């Protein structure tokens, strides 16, 4: 069992194999993401009934909430990549983290912008210093810090590993920042899911007809991230390994 796993991991950690084998996976993710986002948008913008308080204004939820989930997920992804890269010295993991960080920052920015647009008609102002908005803003700064640190070293490996440590420390800090919403209750509406998903007490206050497009959109965003991160990681390892034979062959250089 463990032998098979370690063989599998070592095969995928090899840049030439990853470069070849990830291409079809990227395409699969791209197709699934396109279909899921199309269905989710149709479900969210046409099929779901208007909210009894917010009318049609609530429909921005179908972009805002999946982006917020992605912004948190990608930070955890960075930390996991960082751990793998630091412990097993797999360079591919650092390339994946380096490919994922700007995508995570972009999702965080989308969350902040859609949140502001949503806040204007609902709360009457573009920005309130609500705990959750603030923690999303801090998450955005954390992303910028990781990206800035990884790019400020002349030696790529030093930058990768320093950014990995920052991402891991940040990932420990993110739940502390995030759960400040519970201590700091203000204007923001409650979270969509409450309770503990692990003991079966997860429940939601959103009607099923409004909820399913949200989950489909989330699936679409996840697959979009999968496609994009593989695509970016493939360019990243090509750039990093341009002095090797296989990379020169892959880009058609002599």
């Amino acid at each position, binding site marked *: 069992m463990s032998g098979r796993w370690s063989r599998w991991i070592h095969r995928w950690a090899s840049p030439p194999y990853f470069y070849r084998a990830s291409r079809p996976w990227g395409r699969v993710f791209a197709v699934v993401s396109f279909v899921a986002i199309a269905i989710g948008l149709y479900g969210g913008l046409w099929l779901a009934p208007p909210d009894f308080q917010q009318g049609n204004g609530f429909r921005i939820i179908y972009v805002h909430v999946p982006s917020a989930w992605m912004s948190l997920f990608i930070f955890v992804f960075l930390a996991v990549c960082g751990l793998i890269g*630091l412990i097993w010295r797999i360079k591919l993991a650092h390339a994946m983290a380096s490919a994922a960080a700007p995508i995570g920052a972009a999702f965080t920015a989308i969350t902040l912008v859609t949140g502001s647009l949503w806040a204007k008609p609902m709360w009457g102002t573009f920005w309130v210093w609500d705990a959750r908005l603030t923690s999303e803003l*801090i*998450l955005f*700064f*954390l992303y*910028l*810090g990781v990206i*800035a*640190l990884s790019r*400020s*070293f002349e*030696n790529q*490996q*030093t930058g990768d*590993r*320093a950014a990995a*440590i*920052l991402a*891991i*420390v*940040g990932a*420990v*800090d993110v739940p*502390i*920042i995030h759960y*400040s919403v519970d*201590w*700091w209750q203000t204007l923001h509406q409650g979270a969509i899911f409450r309770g503990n998903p692990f003991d079966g007490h997860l429940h939601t206050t959103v009607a099923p007809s409004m909820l399913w497009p949200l989950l489909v959109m989330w699936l679409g965003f996840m697959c979009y991230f999968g496609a994009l991160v593989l695509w970016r990681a493939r360019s990243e390892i090509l750039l990093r390994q341009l002095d090797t034979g296989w990379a020169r062959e892959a880009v058609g250089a002599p």
Partner: protein
Amino acid sequence: MNGLLGAQLRMIYRARGDYLAPVIFYVLVASLFPLALGPSPRLLSLIAPGVIWIDATLASVVAFAGLFRDDYDDGSLEQMLLSPRPLELIVLVRVFAGWVSLSLPLVLLAPLLALWFSFPPPILPVLLVSLVLTTGCLTLLGALGSALTVGLRHSLVLLPVLLLPLATPVLIFGAHAVLLAERGLDPRTPLYVLAALFFLALALIPKATAAALRVALEV
């Protein structure tokens, strides 16, 4: 162990001029607020917790930027790595010496700032306790930031970008405790959370700092 701590403190004492600048920075920044916002005692006592916290955070970031810089430049960092003692322990001693030399003055000067900002004297103990816990967390974070950027020449702008987002929970609870005490409410909950954050940082950050130092020396 005692020898290591003693040597660290002796070194800091001999270079005491370097450690004065952050303290001056701290007092100077605090004195700018009344100049910018007007001398009204009501307004100043209202903004005092926030001002003291932001000021202490900025002063810590400035102060800890160079915690490992000299060790890196003169090669003692390599010696620390070669030492039979675990690097995490050396980091912890370094952090404690740093706290005594850089953060303790900030805590001790807080009553002066409280005086400037017409702070009600009964909540001074809450202010001091929360400042001790806050500066403890900030010292640990500052050590991590200093270790992450020790190999860089232009780290002065990068370091606040890395540290300030990480420090926000500490800022929230520290200032919140003083705010509650100022309003006559029980400040214990945020103080307990602050203490929990400090012990979490104490358990995890020396490990991360040691890892960052190993990365900086490429071992």
